[in-house]
């Protein structure tokens, strides 16, 4: 078996056995979405207007729970040392780890965001831009999370979010704006294209930076 597939299978197995890795973000998302009608207002018009921002902010905060795990276990158990010694392509391994993290921590939330139609009176016509913006925007957030996770290894738990949240703001703004544009009958494709451009542009840069950050802990 060639090693990327081997690592992909290994990561899937590890995540599937660590239920907290995907249950915690989902539970956080569901609790938050359920509390907004109680805490803010049960007026459908108010919730409907706030829903795009609330959903995106909740998704962003939910991902904070999981991204610290991307490298922390590997760092503590010595796996990163073995990877560095093996001479394998570390960028590819980091990419696989980010991809699996996205599958387990973001994809369930994206699917569950459909519930906002019922809980936040979110208009059904806004579902398409919501799902598309989340599908394209959350991988970028995972990339930022991986970089923050790599930089903050062995440091206190606030360092990672403090690094990740400011970086994620453009994605948050573009994602929320895309939904609002769609609900107001404005073409939202430019926002989706910008989100895609950010993802494509940042992917190699953040992979490179994350590998550098991981190596930094061993020098």
């Amino acid at each position, binding site marked *: *078996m060639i*090693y990327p597939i*081997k*690592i992909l*299978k*290994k990561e899937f*197995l*590890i995540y599937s*056995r*660590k239920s907290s890795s995907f249950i915690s973000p989902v539970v956080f998302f569901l609790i938050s979405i359920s509390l907004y009608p109680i805490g803010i207002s049960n007026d459908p018009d108010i919730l409907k207007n706030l829903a795009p921002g609330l959903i995106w902010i909740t998704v962003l905060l939910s991902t904070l729970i999981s991204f610290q795990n991307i490298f922390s*276990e590997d760092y*503590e*158990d*010595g*796996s990163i*040392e*073995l*990877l*560095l*010694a*093996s*001479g*394998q392509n570390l960028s590819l391994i980091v990419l696989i780890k980010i991809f699996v993290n996205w599958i387990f921590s973001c994809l369930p939330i994206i699917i569950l965001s459909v519930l906002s139609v019922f809980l936040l009176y979110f208009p059904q016509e806004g579902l398409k831009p919501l799902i598309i913006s989340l599908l394209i925007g959350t991988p970028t957030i995972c990339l930022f999370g991986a970089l923050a996770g790599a930089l903050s290894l062995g440091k206190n738990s606030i360092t990672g979010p403090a690094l990740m949240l400011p970086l994620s703001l453009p994605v948050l703004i573009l994602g929320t704006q895309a939904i609002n544009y769609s609900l107001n009958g404005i073409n939202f494709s430019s926002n989706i294209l910008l989100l895609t451009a950010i993802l494509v542009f940042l992917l190699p840069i953040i992979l490179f930076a994350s590998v550098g950050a991981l*190596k930094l802990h*061993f*020098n």
Partner: protein
Amino acid sequence: MLKTANLSYKFDDKYIFSNLSFEFADDSVFKLVGDNGSGKSTLLKILSGIYKNYEGKLSFSEDDLVFYSGHKTGLKNSLSARENIYFDIRLPKISDSQINSVLKQLDLIDYSDIQSAYLSEGQKRKINIASFILSKADLYLLDEPFNNLDRKTSDLLQEIFDMKINAGAKIIFSSHDRSSDDFPLIDMNLFN
């Protein structure tokens, strides 16, 4: 094959070791000895490519496959012994029968499908030894491989050493034990 010249490593402006020169050509095994903190583990990490910011020269054959085993085992607690061996990045493609054979050899077969989180430290070391046995590397860098092992496993590891050496591999390992074998020593205390 492997040569160092005036190799030094400093951490926080303090040299862990300095001016270490040796050539690993004719001998098959080198044993690193020295007090705690003398730089045995650090040297193995430099030789394996984990630490890059050393001073001096280090040259080795780039075609050689290197197998490194440190203090941390790299085992995943959520995976079983069998899965940890199967997914070990240091190993080539291995079959179930090869894994079973090694697990039997190490008396781990009854625990092979239990998650590693529930195994003792000694059993976890044995999983690492299983990877060592299955590896087909040219150079083995092992950090205190005899630690936490019972007598039987220790003797088995010694046999595996001989087997690997006879197959043409070379081994550098660290130990606190200066006695009881004929391996050439590198005393790290001399370079502090």
